[in-house]
């Protein structure tokens, strides 16, 4: 039997309205400071991103969830891996929950998708990742900050500088994931390495989600490369590192990667012994042996019974930035310019080391030379060298003249 179409449409509209209006009524105007969190809690980054949220929660718990005498309320939204969904969610946070400030999102594509929106609404957003250089350049916003690093320059500049200047390598075969960040990283590496006088002999791009890295590692031309450089993450990183080992590449050529990528935990833990001895340059290591980091690692272990990763630390630092800035303006975000000024003047000790924002809205920080080691049966990135005060635009001294500052 047939149901009249208009009836169904009317019912649908009515039902939807009730649901929507019902949802709306949960909001209330009150004293707590509302902080929205955009995290990729479904999809391939879900577990890492849960870690990031844990880091944020830890930071707020350290101040008893109170800033300037007001309770802090975290409203966590799952933005998946979809830029469109992220835009929808930030609108929800701002227009319905009336958040004072947003932490996140993770992916640069998501950050770019919401950039115009937060800029227009002067909504202060502190991303715990979004490492694309675009956020310092064409897509910069006065209201957008990040606690991470700058793809292609920091720490990637050191993944070219250390092999060239310290190790004396002159030729490199490069492998990166075939998406914007991969190209940014590869271009950044090339700029520094070739600027210094080195030669990139191969540029190999693999699509994200490549099931089989056999053909990619077999392509590496070992005759013409002093070392292999790479930027991959997630399952791709695991398969790639495994393949390097199993196909005998690792045994024949040096490996030096960029940080926060190929041999970063938790991927590192899945890679197992195949990753042993691989060096890279990064701005953090969970194995960093400083009082600040040891305390942070211990706190995460106690609270969540998990090992912190770079995501956890990024989340923690983003939340610290928010707390410090809000404290400075006494919790008042009605004029967004005040917290922006406070954020720009931040200078504090993070688990990764000292952080300041003297060159744009991305931290100036240490970069570490790391090597994968096994300690107590567990793989870690042991720090074997420190480069202090590295800005997001860092270039080796030899190249600074050419850049013209």
């Amino acid at each position, binding site marked *: 039997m047939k149901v009249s179409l208009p009836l169904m449409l009317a019912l649908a509209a009515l039902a939807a309205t009730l649901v929507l209006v019902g949802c709306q009524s949960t909001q209330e105007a009150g004293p707590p400071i509302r902080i929205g969190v955009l995290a990729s809690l*479904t999809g391939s980054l*879900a577990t890492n991103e849960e870690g990031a949220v844990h880091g944020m929660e830890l930071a707020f718990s350290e101040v008893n969830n109170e800033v300037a005498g007001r309770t802090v309320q975290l409203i966590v939204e799952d933005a998946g891996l979809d830029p469109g969904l992220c835009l929808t969610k930030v609108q929800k946070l701002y227009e319905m929950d009336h958040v004072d400030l947003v932490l996140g999102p993770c992916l640069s594509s998501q950050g770019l998708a919401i950039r115009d929106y937060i800029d227009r609404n002067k909504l202060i957003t502190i991303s715990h990742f979004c490492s694309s250089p675009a956020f310092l350049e064409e897509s910069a916003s006065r209201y957008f900050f990040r606690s991470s690093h700058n793809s292609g320059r920091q720490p990637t500049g050191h993944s070219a500088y250390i092999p060239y200047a310290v190790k004396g390598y002159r030729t490199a075969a490069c492998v990166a994931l075939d998406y914007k960040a991969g190209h940014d990283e590869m271009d950044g590496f090339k700029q520094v390495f070739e600027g210094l006088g080195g030669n990139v002999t191969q540029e190999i791009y693999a699509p994200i*989600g490549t099931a089989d890295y056999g*053909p990619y590692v*077999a392509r590496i031309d070992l005759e013409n490369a002093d070392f292999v450089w790479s930027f991959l993450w997630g399952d791709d990183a695991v398969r790639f590192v495994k393949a390097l080992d199993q*196909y005998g590449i690792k045994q024949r050529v040096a490996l030096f990667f960029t940080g926060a990528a190929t041999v970063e935990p938790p991927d590192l833990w899945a890679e197992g012994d195949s990753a042993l001895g691989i060096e890279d340059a990064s701005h953090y290591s969970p194995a960093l042996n400083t009082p600040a980091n040891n305390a942070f690692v211990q706190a995460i272990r106690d609270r969540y019974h998990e090992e912190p990763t770079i995501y956890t630390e990024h989340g923690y630092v983003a939340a610290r930035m928010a707390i410090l800035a809000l404290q400075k303006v006494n919790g008042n975000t009605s004029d967004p310019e005040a917290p922006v000024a406070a954020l720009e003047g931040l200078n504090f000790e993070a688990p990764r080391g000292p952080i300041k924002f003297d060159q744009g809205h991305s931290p100036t920080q240490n970069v570490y030379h790391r090597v994968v080691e096994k300690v107590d049966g567990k793989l870690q990135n042991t720090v074997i060298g420190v480069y202090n005060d590295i800005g997001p635009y860092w270039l080796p001294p030899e190249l600074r003249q050419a850049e013209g500052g």
Partner: protein
Amino acid sequence: MPQAEQLALVFLDGVAFSMLLFLLAAGLVLMLGVMNIVNLAHGSFYMLGGFVGIAVGVRTGDFALAVLAGMGAIGVLAFAMERFFLRRLPGNTEQVLFTLGCVYIIWDLSRIAWGSNPQLLSPPAFLAGSVPIGDYRFPVYQLAVIVLGALVALGLWFFVQKTRFGAIVRAGADDREMAAGLGIDIKLVFTAVFTLAGVLAGLAGVIGAPILTANLTLDWQILTLALVVMVVGGMRTIQGALVGSLVIGLVGTVGTFFLPQLSMFLVFAIMALVLAFRPRGLVR
């Protein structure tokens, strides 16, 4: 110019990958042939098999146990799905849509249970090394996968060609009269075929885990590749599944080696060519 040894590496790698695809495509062929359904959760079976295998393998350190657990778990799941759900559905379209719902359920349960971080299973100690090929090396484990795949292919071929049970598979879906004539309960055959396909997918999931890792994107990814294999191989026969797997596995790896920028695309280009010029597949 690539050296011969590089090509050998890629070729062997492609064959090993083909064998994983074959284990899946063979199950799909059996289900399509006997039950006339396509199990959209077949990629999910593969994924879940990998997760279970890793969970058991990491805890016990016993690879054989991991393989058995993966096969067993997916076998039981498939059995239950067929026995308690598929059987009660009136048509095969409903059955397919049911398996689509299962894709979502298996995905989310796996996410809750194992999270989204990549996980890897170590091959057993006696297969852990690599053998030299010129200046390069090739993992022994992948060679073992090739051997295992070949054995399973042989076993399935024997099963389909030489057993009474296999006669039903050859006769095709709608020939219930024949099954009855042979004194075989067709319902039992359905359960058996669906379970067998599940066991094969679980097996593929576990033995694939040391190569491909186990993660939450595998369900659709593997299903897509297995379906492409079906289209290329002709959907009807175990031999077709084998040929399709080899074509897609080798095109995927060797093609990627020469033209990495066209990886994945090549696989679909082959499918499109087959569809345009041999719409019934390469075999039959």
